[in-house]
């Protein structure tokens, strides 16, 4: 059975956050490749709380490279680019060391590009723009990378964990399982491997439980969704469940949700690449309004603006940055509705992380 058929049968979904069907991506590149395809091994990991990509690059280095070279063989690629976050020095060193141990026919395919430490740098289109031109801003799609990516060649941009899963499949092993990063009010935060049957509650228990009484849980990192704790703990950790990049963040009850959300919105607004007006001005307006509420008393008109504008910015950018931020904010307004409606500047809770 071909590797693509194995990937298909396992139902593998991409682990970079978008949960795209891996088999479809591979097939699209395979159809177009004339021995010129490019494999981009995506270890940019720009998601602030995520650590699982660095974990897999340092601890399962050979699996990542195996997956990359399986892809190179299967998709008839003549180039493998390791796209690794410029601040992830340990991961980079581990990967480079492992490349030295590979046979010459594999080694000569490899080059390295160090991804700028910005949120959007991990997006497929930004990776390709960076490898081609040295600037990690997302560009318009289509053409999609599988059609015209690095140097105009069909390109597979694949998250490092996904490639490691492919390597397991190619060895005839089950690829099931998911790497998650537990963050926030957790007794022992960090990376955990779980199977898809495990619930978020069980995963948290496995990490020594929560370190404080929780207020809510953020599922899927900064492009994810806030959920009430009792709803979140029941969720199974299977991809396609809105797990995104796999970050599970526990907000303790001692922290102010409004101040926390305002801080993250300011961060996401500052990470807009300012190429599309609605993203740059829209996210800034949303972040400013959140901050107004956080710094002052909540006003009903501020709240209704947030609700309205969060819908208005969706689908208005060349990439999905405004959509991710809007989904995050809408879920916050939902779960923290009462906190947003009754916020006082001088609350007893500590301000932010």
């Amino acid at each position: 059975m071909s590797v693509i058929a194995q990937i298909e049968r396992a139902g593998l979904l991409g682990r970079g956050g978008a949960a795209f069907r891996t088999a479809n991506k591979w097939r699209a590149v395979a159809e177009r490749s004339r021995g010129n395809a490019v494999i981009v091994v995506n270890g940019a990991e720009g998601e602030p709380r995520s650590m699982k990509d660095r974990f897999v690059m340092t601890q399962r280095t050979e699996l990542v490279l195996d997956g990359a070279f399986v892809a190179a063989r299967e998709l008839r690629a003549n180039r493998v680019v390791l796209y690794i976050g410029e601040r992830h020095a340990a991961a980079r060193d581990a990967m480079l060391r492992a490349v030295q141990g590979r046979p010459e026919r594999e080694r000569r395919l490899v080059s390295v590009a160090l991804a700028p430490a910005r949120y959007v740098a991990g997006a497929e289109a930004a990776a390709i723009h960076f490898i081609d031109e040295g600037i990690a801003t997302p560009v318009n799609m289509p053409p999609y990378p599988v059609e015209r990516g690095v140097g105009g060649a069909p390109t597979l941009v694949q998250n490092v964990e996904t490639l490691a899963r492919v390597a397991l499949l190619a060895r005839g092993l089950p690829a099931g399982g998911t790497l998650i990063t537990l963050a926030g009010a957790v007794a022992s935060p960090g990376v955990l491997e779980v199977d898809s049957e495990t619930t978020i509650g069980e995963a948290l228990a496995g990490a020594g439980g929560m370190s404080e009484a929780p207020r809510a849980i953020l599922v899927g990192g900064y492009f994810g969704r806030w959920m009430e704790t009792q709803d979140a703990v029941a969720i199974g950790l299977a991809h396609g469940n809105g797990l995104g990049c796999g970050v599970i963040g526990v907000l303790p009850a001692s922290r102010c949700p409004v101040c926390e959300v305002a801080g993250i919105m300011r961060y996401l607004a500052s990470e807009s690449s300012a190429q599309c007006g609605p993203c740059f001005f829209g996210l800034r307006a949303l972040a400013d309004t959140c901050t107004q509420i956080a710094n002052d008393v909540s006003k009903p008109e501020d709240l209704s603006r947030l609700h309205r504008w969060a819908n208005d910015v969706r689908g208005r950018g060349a990439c999905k940055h405004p959509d991710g931020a809007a989904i995050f904010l809408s879920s916050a307004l939902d779960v923290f509705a009462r906190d947003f409606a009754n916020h006082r500047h001088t609350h007893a809770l500590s301000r932010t992380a």
Partner: protein
Amino acid sequence: MSDSILWYTTRGAGAVTLILLSSVVVLGILGTQRVQSRSWPRFLTTGLHSNLALMTLVFLALHIVTAVVDPFTNLGWAAAFIPFDSYYRTFWLGLGVISFELLLAIIVTSLLRGFIGHRSWRAIHWLTYAVWPIGLVHGMGTGTDTWSAWMLGITCACVAAVALAVVLRISSGAQDPLAVPRAAFRGAVDRREPR
């Protein structure tokens, strides 16, 4: 009676199209300016601009369809798409057809901006400065209502609004409101070797 309903609809929809198109032009121009407040962030101006443009197209379609199907004018479909093809007020109607087709091109390329790229989109978008005056002259030339007080009022208001916006645009010089933040971000993610 049903015939005159069509005829009145044509004229009414034409007037509404002029109002909407002028608003779209004004909003498009204001979108490049620093027009914003706490309750009206700039991205809403562009959103309203594109939504109103789609609405303009709806009223323009109504204007054209009712004119064509009206047995009184007996225009035929060819006259709606081929400039200067109608026996009826050939020149003024032809201007309307040109204006309509340019507008259609502008709207279609805006919807497909991701496919055609920013540069070509922008080049075609400049045609707006032809669409609006041609459409205006079409209305005044063909217009059954041109010299009625209410239509004259609408025309003057539209001309004044667009003229004001254009003056504002010219006096503020060429400026891209995103230029500074975009350059800053690009600089932060630029790892090209210094030459």
